[in-house]
């Protein structure tokens, strides 16, 4: 399926694209536009004003995806907190790592185009997922030195 969003992706769109490819549509193809009027008829828009898969009731688009597709995985909700704060910084959640994620992706977007940004961000979010997963399940900080952990795919 084709998915469309605004050009010059930042954290929320990068996270949504990762979520789409990993959990919803492995064959997803992404298209970037400057204006909502340019959305192709056969593509599903996200993180754009006035569309279903976007910001709603103070949620960022990543949170909206989790709600609309009923992805109840608590690990994804952990990531959602980070993405929300990196995107909106409204202190709805306590996510101190958000500031770092925001800077990393902002920096990447200065040196890479949107396709490359999404490609580079994907393993970053894979890693965040494993990290949050380890923290969720054990209740402690993940170990720092487990070789091979997180390389399940």
């Amino acid at each position, binding site marked *: 399926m084709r998915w469309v969003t605004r050009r*010059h992706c930042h954290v929320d769109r990068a996270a949504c694209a990762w979520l789409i490819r990993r959990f919803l549509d492995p064959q997803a193809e992404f298209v970037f536009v400057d204006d909502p009027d340019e959305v192709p008829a056969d593509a599903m828009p996200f993180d754009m*004003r*006035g569309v279903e898969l*976007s*910001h*709603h*009731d*103070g949620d960022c688009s990543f949170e909206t995806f989790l709600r609309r597709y009923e992805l109840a995985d608590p690990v994804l909700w952990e990531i959602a907190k980070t993405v929300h704060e990196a995107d*909106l*910084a*409204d202190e709805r959640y306590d996510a101190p790592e958000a*500031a770092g994620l925001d800077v990393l992706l902002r920096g990447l977007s200065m040196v890479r185009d949107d396709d490359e940004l999404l490609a580079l961000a994907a393993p970053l979010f894979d890693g965040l997922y494993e990290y949050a997963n380890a923290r969720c399940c054990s209740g402690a900080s993940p170990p720092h030195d487990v070789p091979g952990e997180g390389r399940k795919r």
Partner: protein
Amino acid sequence: MLLAYRLPRDPSTPRSALWRKLRRLGAAQVLDGLAALPLDARTREQFEWLAEEIAEAGGEATIWVGELASAAHERELAARMAEAVAAEYRALIADAAAAARAEVPGRRRRTLGRLRRELRRIRARDYFPPAERERAQQAVAELAAFVEEPVG
């Protein structure tokens, strides 16, 4: 860039949420229902999400990109926004100085963490940096040096 909006009086929750978000962004309230921010990619996106939220709460919002016809009024508006963050910086400087003087070492360290976060928040809405920005950074750096000094 201007956000022109109208929100129903009731319920009051969306109104106060909007007010908090505008304040966090450092927007200048030009009139009731008219907020202004300097235009860049980030501020524009933030205004667009706010406009969306206002519409979802049963209100109306439009975003305008424009400029003041009078240069003097533009300077006045920028000065007003600079003064608002300058006041926040001054409060932070006072807090840092008080912590350096009075607090026990453990508390001083926690205060340092809080002030650093506060400084980051203010900097994010500091579009027309006043002289106080440099002084606030200095004050927090001094408190940090104080915290690192061996006790006794």
